[in-house]
């Protein structure tokens, strides 16, 4: 059985909470046990919808007791001075165990281009912290610029639409630092096989989007893929493990 390391798990309640959705570390771990997911990189929904700084503190505190849940903090660009300088913030979060960063440019009302977010992106690039973003939060042109200007920054586009291949493939072609995860609505028929064949298995990261989405579809998308078992192992856990281990401490 291949190991699964989930790069896209959510802690906390969202504004439009659905009854029964897991929100605590214990509830997430119980679901991971049910599905055979060994570890996960976890983001906090509080950072998206209300208080980003409180969310980061809460996330780092809540996950300090378990090595199965790895925190991924949320950050803002520095111009408005809300969260300290990017270098200081990134230093602190890495010291407290974070191994990834999420940004929400549309929801938080800023541009990911260098004129607005350059210092934040450079701080992440310097420490080799992987950057995660929901594809709905960014334009493909912004993603293309980030990938081109920050070649040492690994970018993971999450929960992509099954209708994106015509823009994804040229980005894969030009930018080895682009990765995408397997969370719904990524459901393109034959996508995993074609991406592995054309661009290599290291471009795909296992991620479920749970509990926004059920995790089962992302699992079978991978386990039933028509690719070699070694590639399944890389996508299931190896690729994300490499990104996490690459963070400079």
């Amino acid at each position, binding site marked *: *059985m291949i190991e699964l390391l989930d790069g896209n798990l959510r802690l906390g309640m969202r504004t439009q909470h659905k009854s029964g959705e897991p929100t605590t570390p214990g509830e997430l771990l119980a679901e991971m046990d049910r599905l*055979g997911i060994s570890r996960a990189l976890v983001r906090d929904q509080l950072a998206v919808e209300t208080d980003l700084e409180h969310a980061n503190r809460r996330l780092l505190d809540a996950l300090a007791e378990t090595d199965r849940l790895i925190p991924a903090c949320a950050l803002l660009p520095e111009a408005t001075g809300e969260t300290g300088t990017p270098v200081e913030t990134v230093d602190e979060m890495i010291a407290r165990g974070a191994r990834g960063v999420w940004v929400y440019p549309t929801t938080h009302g800023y541009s990911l281009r260098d004129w607005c977010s350059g210092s934040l992106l450079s701080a992440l690039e310097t420490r080799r912290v992987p950057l995660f973003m929901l594809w709905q939060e960014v334009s493909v042109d912004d993603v293309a610029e980030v990938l081109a200007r920050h070649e040492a920054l690994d970018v993971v586009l999450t929960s992509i639409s099954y209708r994106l*291949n015509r823009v994804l493939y040229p980005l894969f072609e030009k930018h080895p630092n682009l990765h995408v995860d397997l969370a719904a609505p990524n459901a*393109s028929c*034959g996508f995993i096989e074609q991406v592995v064949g054309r661009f290599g298995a290291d471009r795909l990261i296992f991620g479920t989007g749970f509990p926004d989405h*059920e995790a089962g579809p992302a699992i*079978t998308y991978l*386990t039933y893929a028509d690719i070699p078992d070694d590639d399944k192992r890389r996508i299931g856990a190896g690729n994300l493990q490499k990104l996490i281990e690459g963070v400079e401490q």
Partner: protein
Amino acid sequence: MSGTRSLAECARLGKRLDDVFVFDVHQHVGAWHPFHIPAPGIDDAVAIMDRLGIDAAVTSGLPAVLGTDTRGGNDAVIDAAARYPGRIFGYVAVNPNDPADAAEEVKRCAAAGLTGIKVHNIHAQSYDHEKYRAAYEIAETRGWPVLTHTWGGEELAEIDKLAEEYPNVRWILAHAGTTNVPGYVNLARRRDNVYLDTCASACYFNLVEKLVTGAGVEKVLFGTDMTFLSGAQQIGKILFARISDGDKERVLGENARRVFNLPE
């Protein structure tokens, strides 16, 4: 169960479902270029069915369902069913805006072996449209299923009335629960001849459990929407659902035996 393993264990291992009858009520065939599909053809779909253990499927022609080439799309379905007898069955797509005679097209396709109707409201017409009704009359006489594209809106009320008017038709609501879960489960529970198809790119938390509990397990049918969507991705919501393996087997295929008049 599949052999000695649970269905969730099979899914986690990527093991083919050899000992379970799996029937996909929602596939498509034919060219489609508004977005890229890496594995678009009927041969791709059958290869995926082989890998997962999907025994058979019912398909419809994309150019007929969503485009303007009704006859050409339906011919692609006839060809696919002829190439894979017993594996691929076919729906006749009806386009209410096509000036051709809908009843004649259904009869032509029925003579070629197709055994159901597919309708889609992308054509901006009510499911109560007279051209659709010409097809429903034939479905009523033959006890056929009618697969309807739905998204939880006012079309549910239309189908509610039609289900009463055409009691021998088995009305299948595609993409059940994408929105308005109560609307779907209440309709399927109220009408004996209304069924829910699970295919959708996203599966929200506990959705399959809500459909099974709300509508009754016998009313939920497995669909993939291949090759629009990945069959491998779609089957995960059933195999990992928080329901018994017996109920998963009903959803995966046993319920479809009754709806599609398949042998036990």
